[in-house]
């Protein structure tokens, strides 16, 4: 693939003698949507930190052609009394990396308004960030990442702490972006169902190993049983994937959706 935005070759990450994953070859093309799955502690977030340049690979190489990077972080509450409102958060995505004072130009105000509109955040644009709910804040973070006009969008559990409706809203916003602008999407999540219909490939990390392929290839009983080294069952119920018996995969353990 010549139009790869991200390529990893022989990539591995280990902390001490604990290997998270190794021998990973991955090329992501423009407009490709890859979901990164796996149990807690399997190295999903570390994988994203590698792409962000905040974590060095233990082995192998990483090449990122697509710039700028957009980044949607895990939901985190904003400190009380933070002197910023919704529109200020989005504005940071537009020109927060530039030097100087934040003088308001009409062009910037209009762009911020468009982005607010696009994520349905116009109604709370002037409310203090600290007073917003998780879903409201997360939509603003999507808009902030989109403001950079990113070639690659890195999302770290963006659906965490959102209710089903807002999970759908946020996932669709990300998907719309990649369809309209051929943005590469790396979507770290412990819950594939909200994005199942959008995903081109799945990178499933577990037990120091990984599976890479289309959802149909990776999300099967045989493939995941082999990855975990113990028998487990992947069932499709009402269009949702349910994994039964993944060892230590999730906090609540046992029967769970992926």
């Amino acid at each position, binding site marked *: 693939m010549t139009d790869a935005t991200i390529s990893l070759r022989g990539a591995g990450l280990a902390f001490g003698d604990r290997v998270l994953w190794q021998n990973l070859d991955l090329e992501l093309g423009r407009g490709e949507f890859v979901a990164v799955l796996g149990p807690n502690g399997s190295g999903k977030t570390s994988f994203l930190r590698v792409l962000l340049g905040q974590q060095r690979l233990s082995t192998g190489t990483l090449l990122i052609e697509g710039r700028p*990077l957009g980044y949607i*972080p895990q939901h985190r509450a904003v400190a009380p009394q*933070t002197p*910023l409102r919704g529109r200020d958060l989005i504005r940071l*995505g537009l020109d*927060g*990396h530039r030097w100087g*004072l*934040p003088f308001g130009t009409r062009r910037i105000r209009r762009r911020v308004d468009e982005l607010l509109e696009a994520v349905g955040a116009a109604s709370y644009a002037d409310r203090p960030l600290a007073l917003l709910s998780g879903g409201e804040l997360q939509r603003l973070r999507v808009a902030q*990442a989109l403001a950079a006009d990113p070639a690659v969008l890195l999302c770290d559990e963006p659906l965490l702490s959102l209710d089903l409706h807002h999970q759908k809203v946020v996932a669709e916003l990300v998907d719309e972006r990649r369809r309209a602008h051929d943005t590469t999407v790396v979507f770290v999540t412990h819950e594939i169902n909200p994005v199942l219909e959008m995903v081109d490939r799945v990178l499933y990390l577990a037990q120091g190993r990984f599976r890479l392929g289309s959802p149909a290839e990776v999300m099967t009983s045989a493939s995941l049983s082999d990855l975990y080294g113990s028998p487990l069952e992947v069932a499709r119920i009402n269009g949702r994937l349910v994994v039964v018996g993944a060892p230590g995969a999730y906090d609540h353990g046992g029967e769970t959706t992926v």
Partner: protein
Amino acid sequence: MTGDVWQQIFTFDDYGELLALVHNSLIAGAVLGLVGGVIGTFVMMRDLAFAVHGVAELSFAGASAALLLGVNVAAGSLAGSIVAALIIGALGVRAKDRNSVIGILMPFGLGLGVLFLALYKGRAANKFGLLTGQIVAVDTVQMSWLVGTSVVVLVALAVIWRPLVFASLDPDVAAARGVPVGILSPVFMVLLGLTVAVSIQVVGALLVLALLVTPAAAAMRITASPLRVTLLSVAFAVTSVVGGILLALGSSVPISPYVTTISFTLYLACRAVGGVRAR
């Protein structure tokens, strides 16, 4: 008896003549209020209130060392606060580490300062002033140093403003967007050190917080607009310092209780207003 105490706290005999004498101090106070109010919003956003206190104690140690050695006190306080700011910045990246680093540095700095002052044989007023502030008739040399430093801090803040806001709110997201987060942090600490060093000249080491934290904290109680927070914070800080100097003029009491009382009153008022609005 009570009358005597009030007489000491508020006296307005010969006020006009005194006013002419402290003309420079008033300008210095206004400039300090401006810098303190502006940088205070970042102190709050970056959760550095305790760090301000730590830097101030080390700055106090530097100033008292200079007093003992007979060299420039302002230079001593500047050296102390820059060293403290850089240590705190380097050792305490995460808030938890930072607070323990400050908790360890601060008593050490204070102890050093007390030692130097104990050894110092000069005027007692010089000693006390470093801790609780003084309105000396600010001379032209001090004045140009103070204004010069303040201009440096303000210009530097204006240059790094947007990336600094970004990095203060969300360092990871800012870094992904290309903000040099790793450089901004020590740069800000140096600017904070400079501000603390000049503030100590007027309000003293113990009460720098009233200038660098309280006004911004008050402003944040009543608005979340970044522009309005900055403007209000500056207005509160200038009111506190200039008002404090004007009230302290006729008295034999140091300036700091006036400054801190005004700034605390403003904070209470803002809390009340914010509380009513939240309901």
